[in-house]
Each structure stands twice: as C-alpha cells, then as structure tokens.
C-alpha cells in the first residue's frame, strides 16, 4: 500500500478534496458533502475519491441506514486513513500551505 500511495499525483483538485477532509479528519463525508465543500464537479470529484481510496488514503463504507426506512439510497461515506492523514499533512506542508485548521 505504501508503494501505491507514493504514486498518487497531487493535482489542485486533489488538494481541494484533501483539504475538505482535513478540516476534521475524523469526519466521514459522502460525495455530496465533499462536493459542497470543494465545489468540484461530480465528474472530477468521484474519480479523485476512488483514486485516493484505492491508494489507501481513504476508506469508505456504506451508511448504516435502511434505504426503505429513510426513503433514499444509502450514502457512501469516506474517511481519511491514518496513513492518508499523514501523507496529506506532508503534502500540504511541502506545498507551504500548512495543514488546514
């Protein structure tokens, strides 16, 4: 997994996604939540989420609700992994922006 993380290319859009998660690293965010924070188009956002997840920066799970009960599909929730948090912090430090508070 470490080798895979090293190969992730950090684009400006990726930084915005990471920044949204670093606001509160323990939070679990759905794609719609990330979109609201980053204002990225869905065509850009979801591929980034999948790449970061496959690289081990994120983990995801289904929302623990009954779709029939809530009347909507389950949401996919993403969260930073410890290694992802470390790597994201390192990336922001290397860019001179610092880790978002």
């Amino acid at each position, binding site marked *: 997994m470490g080798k895979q993380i090293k190969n992730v290319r950090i684009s400006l859009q990726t930084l915005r996604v990471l920044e949204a998660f670093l606001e509160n690293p323990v939070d679990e965010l759905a794609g719609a939540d990330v979109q609201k924070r980053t204002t990225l188009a869905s*065509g850009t956002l979801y591929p980034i989420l999948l790449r970061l997840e496959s690289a081990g920066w994120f983990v995801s799970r289904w929302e623990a609700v009954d779709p029939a009960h809530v009347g909507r599909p389950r949401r996919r929730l993403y969260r930073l992994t410890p290694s992802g948090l470390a790597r994201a912090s390192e990336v922001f430090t290397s860019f001179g922006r610092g880790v978002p508070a």
Partner: protein
Amino acid sequence: MKTRNDQDLARRLILRAARKAPAAVAQRLEEEWLADLASRQGSLARLRLAIGCSWATAVITRDFNVPQLATSGAGNGPKHWFADHRYDLPLLSRRTVTLLLIAGAHVLLIYVFASGFAQQFSLIIPQIMHGVVIEENRPQPPPPVLSTLPFKATVITDITDTFDPDRFDLTIARGDEPKHATDDPPGGSLPRGVPAVVRVLGGPGRNFPTTEDYYPTASRRISETGAANVQVCVDGRGYLTGAPTLSKSSGSPRIDDAALKLARAGSGHYRPTTEDGTPVTSCYGYRIRFELTD
C-alpha cells in the same frame, strides 16, 4: 411536474452512466450517485450531477483500462485498481474549454448584433478613417531587354552658329582693311573701315563624349529620340567658361537633361573658335541629337 421529469431524466442518465462503468464498481457507483442525486435540490443541480457522472464514468473507465493499473489491481481486488494512477483530470478538459470558447464567441456575436453595437460601430468607422486619394497606377509596358534591343545609340552633333554678340565681347583688332573673310556675304564686300578676320567657329572636338554614354535609360527603353540645342561658352583651350544652357528644348525633359550633361562633360574637348587661326574665347550653340539607329 417539471421537477419530476427533470429528476427522472437525471436518474436515467445516472443509471446509464453507472452501467457503463467497470463492473467492479458499477453497482457501488449507481447507489452512491443515486444517493447524491437525492440530496440535490433543483433541476439544474440534478442535471449537472447526472452529466458529471457520465463524465466520471468515462474517466474511471479509462483509468481502469490502463494496463499497469489492471495488473497492479489484479492481485488485490477491485479496491486497488487506481493505485498507480499518475494523473488527475483538470476541472475543465481541453475539449470542454474549446466548446465553451466557441459558445462564448457565438454569444458575443449575437449580443453585438442584437444590441445594435455593430451598427454603432459601423457609423463610427467612417469618422475614424481618413480617405486618401491614390492615383491610379497605370500599368507600364514591360521594359525591353537591352541585350536584344535592335538599335544602337549614336551621337549626332549638329553645329549651329548661334553666336550671340551681345553675350560675348569679341574684340577685333586688325587692320583697317580686311585680309580675308570667310563670312563675307556672297557677291558683296565689306564696307570700308570694317575689319575683316578669318573666324572659324568652334564646336565639339576630338574625344568629345558620345550620346551613347548619356542616353537616358528610360528614353532608351521606350525608344524616345529628340534633339536639343545647347549654348556653350568655350575658352581658347576648349574648356567651358560657364555652365551650358538650353537654347531650344527637345520636348523631352529627359533628353534636355542628358544634352546638358553631355555638353558639360565635353569641357576640354571643345574645338575653340579661331580668328585668323588664333583660338579665342567664344560662345556658340550646337545641336545634340539623341537617336536610336541600327
């Protein structure tokens, strides 16, 4: 009703996009995107999400089909098939930017014509512009090739006696009786007391320049000919004592100028006027003819 139709359209687009995604993630993406759709408010937001999902499918499919990704993900399951991805798509692709620029240009054109700005601009243009009358450039005949010109320029000088006694003080100091006069009127004799001298008028002498060297190029090209009368004052050594003057034009400024240049260049090569064999300063005229002969 309209909202319902928009939602159905967005749902269909999302389902279609999810079906085209790689099988490993198709079901997941469908549910995830439908959940996202449910949280969107407004028709535009829902349609924007649906279109974005279609674009995301294309990106995800392309990433999935990269050979090294497929290889790296083969042993670890579908979770890792993005692991070695080295690039992210920009927010707006080059194609999107191009389409937006084209659309923007059309909108700008429509606005220009609809707002009347184009008409106002067309009224301003004549005020800014300044008309300049340009003379018609008449086509000139092509110049002939000189090497194939069937003519040869030669100088022809006609000596004309245009001696002007008012301009030249000719001092005649001879005996009371004429010894010999070449300019006596035929059949007559000089009155008593008038001195008689043998006066031979000068003119172009040995090594005098030829018109061939001074023939104007433009006149040569158009086969222009002409003759000009020039007036010169020459001292006893054959040198000019003043600038030559034109006494009769040829009708062509080019020929006239060339004649004056030729007359000026001949200084030192003039044959001086002689009186009783003695060179004297005198003024006389002669004709310079520029002709093209075989």
